[in-house]
């Protein structure tokens, strides 16, 4: 009884899993639905046998369920048969007739079974000859349909479907064997019956493999989506192989000990240790792992690659900085790892009309200079193909019928060079990667490898282009800085020349005037000061500031006074709630920056308008708000132009607001702008308070502001 419970219990669980898996995803697929029904009915039947053997009872129910199970498997096979015969009206008609006939037969058996229900054991009951013959006929019928299915399955599909036919055939074959035996001996053999659960359980994995292998077996349109990770298959295969190896080693060790005499135990220990060491070495060998991976890809999966995983790996390799490896090396690696290539060479287009070697990874040192109009470059540019040098050597026509292609010496002379992958950016060839031969993939390069490499090449090209753009931007910024410095130097030198030449020309007239001498000395001193400042700036020390803590309220008062000295209107109104708001900054620069915003507000506002300057404290920031009722700015202007240097509505150079924001950011603060055309503008400056000093708190606070304010 115990064996029976275990046997049918396992069968119940496995069929239940299979049935539930088949119910996932889309349901409008007849083979899938019938397979799900057959699996679930099998699970219910196995479950009822398990229940019956443990608790007793349910005999008639179990008997009926077995017949129902047979009917559902028949239904599945017939649906598959219809698919195999192709769907014509005649076939559909035959299909319906066959199915109706078999259904009548099985339902008749069920009626008979119900009629004969009269107590006694299950086996005695089933052993009634008529029911036995019925079971035998069902088994034979099932085997006949499977034979038909196998013969009518195309060569291409047979690889994927054979496990399905073997699995269901095995079920029917065992049933045939069981009931033949019962028919001969007039009783069902207990052992055979108990094994039936195990036999049925064994076929479930085979059905699973078939589903995974042949996604299109279900009418060729909808696939059954069972995800079997390559990684899991890889590890399972490795584990299984290791397990088998260890069993053999175990036997070997036992043999060595038995035959080793006095050396037996020592020899056994040595043998076992050497064997396990060998296993570890093999498992850690990248070559062996590559070969296992290729073997799994070849034999277990419809496609060679798990594209999701490959894509994630490519992006990871390109994006994540590893040690000191440059992006260019990572670009080579991202392509090489796809086909387990041990190394590669990156060749990039240069501005000199040539493609030149750029970076290499495990590739022999070489300097490549390939003219842009060489046949290789033209071929890669026009056809964007991955060139397999093996294919080219075996059959050059494969490539040359598309266009002229001569493999240059630097490439053909390297016997390890295998593939040339173009890096295409917006249909332009920006370079290519030469990959070294992969022993694991030897003679195993097809359209899938080519497509994936080509696509990955595009991705790598995009990253490389982005990198080069960023580099160009950095260089441009450096040039801009140099230009600004040059302009500053020229400006100051001109002033100094002007001052000194005027001293000289004025001296001709006034050299005897002591007052002129005094002024001349002051002028020379002024020039010397300017020269010193220039030197400081040239040494890169110009940004040193005299940071000091000061009252922001007082500074605002001073700035407003300066902005209204000349009678400029409107006069800003200051509103300081807390006069003791202290910040740490260069007072002069802060004053200039605030004055700049106030002057902007004055320029934008009619004399009759108003400007309000408010100061308050919020957490770790002092907040200055400069509000005007001026002409305002459009959202587009704020976004596109306000903070762009050299943009202005006033016809001036317009670097002011840009500089203000840069300075406020430098202090760890922020500048927000809100504006509406015809209504006015609000400039809000967040400046870290002097008493708060935790950078983290500042960042958190700024982030909060980010959420609720419109930061431009």
């Amino acid at each position, binding site marked *: 009884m115990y064996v029976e419970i275990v046997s049918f219990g396992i069968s119940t669980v496995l069929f239940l899993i299979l049935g539930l898996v088949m119910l996932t995803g889309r349901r409008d697929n007849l083979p899938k639905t019938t397979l799900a029904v057959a699996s679930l009915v099998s699970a219910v039947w196995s479950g009822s046998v398990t229940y019956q053997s443990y608790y007793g009872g349910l005999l008639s129910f179990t008997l009926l369920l077995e017949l129902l199970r047979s009917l559902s498997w028949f239904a599945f096979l017939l649906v598959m048969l219809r698919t195999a015969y192709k769907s014509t009206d005649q076939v559909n008609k035959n299909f319906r007739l066959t199915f109706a006939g078999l259904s009548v037969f099985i339902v008749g058996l069920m009626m008979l079974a119900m009629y004969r229900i009269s107590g006694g054991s299950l086996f005695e009951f089933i052993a009634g000859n008529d029911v036995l013959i019925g079971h035998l006929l069902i088994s034979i019928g099932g085997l006949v349909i499977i034979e038909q299915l196998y013969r009518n399955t195309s060569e291409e599909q047979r690889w994927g479907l054979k496990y399905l036919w073997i699995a269901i055939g095995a079920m029917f074959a065992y049933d045939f064997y069981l009931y033949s035996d019962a028919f001969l001996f007039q009783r069902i053999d207990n052992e055979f019956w108990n094994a039936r659960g195990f036999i049925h359980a064994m076929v479930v994995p085979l059905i699973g493999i078939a589903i995974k292998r042949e996604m299109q077996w279900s009418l060729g349109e909808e696939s059954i989506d069972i995800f079997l990770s390559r990684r899991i298959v890889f590890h399972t295969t490795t584990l299984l192989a290791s397990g088998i190896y260890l069993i053999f080693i175990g036997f070997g060790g036992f043999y060595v000990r038995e035959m080793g005499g006095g050396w037996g135990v020592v020899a056994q220990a040595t043998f076992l240790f050497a064997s396990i060491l060998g296993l570890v070495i093999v498992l850690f060998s990248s070559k062996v792992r590559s070969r296992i991976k290729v073997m799994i890809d070849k034999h277990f999966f419809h496609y060679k690659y798990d594209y999701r995983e490959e894509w994630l790996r490519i992006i990871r390799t390109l994006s994540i900085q590893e040690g000191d490896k440059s992006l260019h090396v990572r670009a080579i690696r991202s392509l090489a790892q796809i086909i387990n290539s041990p190394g590669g060479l990156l060749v990039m287009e240069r501005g000199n009309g040539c493609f030149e070697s750029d970076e290499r990874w495990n590739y022999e040192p070489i300097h490549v200079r390939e003219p842009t109009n060489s046949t290789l470059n033209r071929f890669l540019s026009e056809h964007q193909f991955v060139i397999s040098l093996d294919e080219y050597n075996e059959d050059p026509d494969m490539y040359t019928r598309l266009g002229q292609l001569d493999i240059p010496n630097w490439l053909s002379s390297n016997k390890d060079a295998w593939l040339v992958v173009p890096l295409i950016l917006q249909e332009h060839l920006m370079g290519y990667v030469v990959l070294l031969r992969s022993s694991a993939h030897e003679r195993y390069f097809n359209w899938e490898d080519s497509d994936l490499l080509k696509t990955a090449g595009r991705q790598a090209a995009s990253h490389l282009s982005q990198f080069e753009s960023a580099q160009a931007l950095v260089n441009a910024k450096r040039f801009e800085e140099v230009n*600004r410095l040059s*302009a*500053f130097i*020229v*400006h100051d030198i*001109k*002033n100094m*020349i*002007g*001052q000194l*030449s*005027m*001293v000289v*020309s*004025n001296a001709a007239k*006034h050299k005897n005037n002591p007052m*002129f001498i005094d*002024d*001349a000395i*002051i*002028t020379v001193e*002024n*020039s010397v000061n300017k020269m010193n400042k220039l030197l400081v700036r040239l040494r890169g020390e110009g940004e040193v500031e005299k940071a000091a803590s000061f009252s922001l309220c007082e500074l605002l008062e001073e700035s407003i006074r*300066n*902005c209204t*000295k*000349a*009678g*400029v209107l409107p006069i800003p109104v200051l509103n300081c709630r807390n006069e003791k708001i202290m910040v740490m900054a260069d007072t002069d620069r802060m004053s*200039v*920056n605030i*004055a*700049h915003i106030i*002057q902007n507000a004055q*320029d934008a506002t009619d004399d009759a308008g108003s400007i309000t300057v408010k100061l308050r404290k919020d957490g770790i920031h002092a907040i200055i708000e400069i509000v005007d009722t001026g002409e305002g700015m459009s959202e587009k202007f704020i976004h596109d132009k306000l903070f762009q240097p050299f943009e*202005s509505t*006033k*016809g*001036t*150079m*317009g*670097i*002011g607001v840009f500089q203000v924001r840069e300075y406020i950011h430098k202090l760890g603060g922020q500048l927000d702008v809100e504006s509406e055309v015809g209504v006015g503008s609000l400039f809000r400056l967040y400046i870290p308070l002097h008493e708060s000093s935790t950078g983290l708190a500042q960042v958190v606070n700024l982030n909060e502001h980010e959420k609720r304010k419109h930061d431009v």
Partner: protein
Amino acid sequence: MMSKPKLLIVDDDEGIRTQLKWGIEGFDIITADSREKAIEQIEAHRPQLVTLDLGLPPDVEGTSEGFAILAAILEREPSTTVVVVSASEKDVNSVKAVEKGAFAFYAKPVDIESLQKILDSAYLSISGE
């Protein structure tokens, strides 16, 4: 005896202001180093001529403050003759200065004789002598 015409020199560089005062002849010279000071002087003395540096604080390395002063002067005293003096080498600034109402644009470094001639001719053109 006729009083000399008034010339306002607007420049943030003290040395330039001082030496121009010694070098330029025929004018009663007053000076300013910022927008506020310049407007103060304009309103107090109503000078006929102004030499204006474009690179003034807070935009020492640009020209925005200089052009703002030019606009402020001409708004208050449209008859003032302004000679813009700048270290900027960009033609666009000279064109812009004239467009905005300046009489002439003079590129630094300052040469006293040349500037004197420009100022003399500027004064002649407004005085009609």
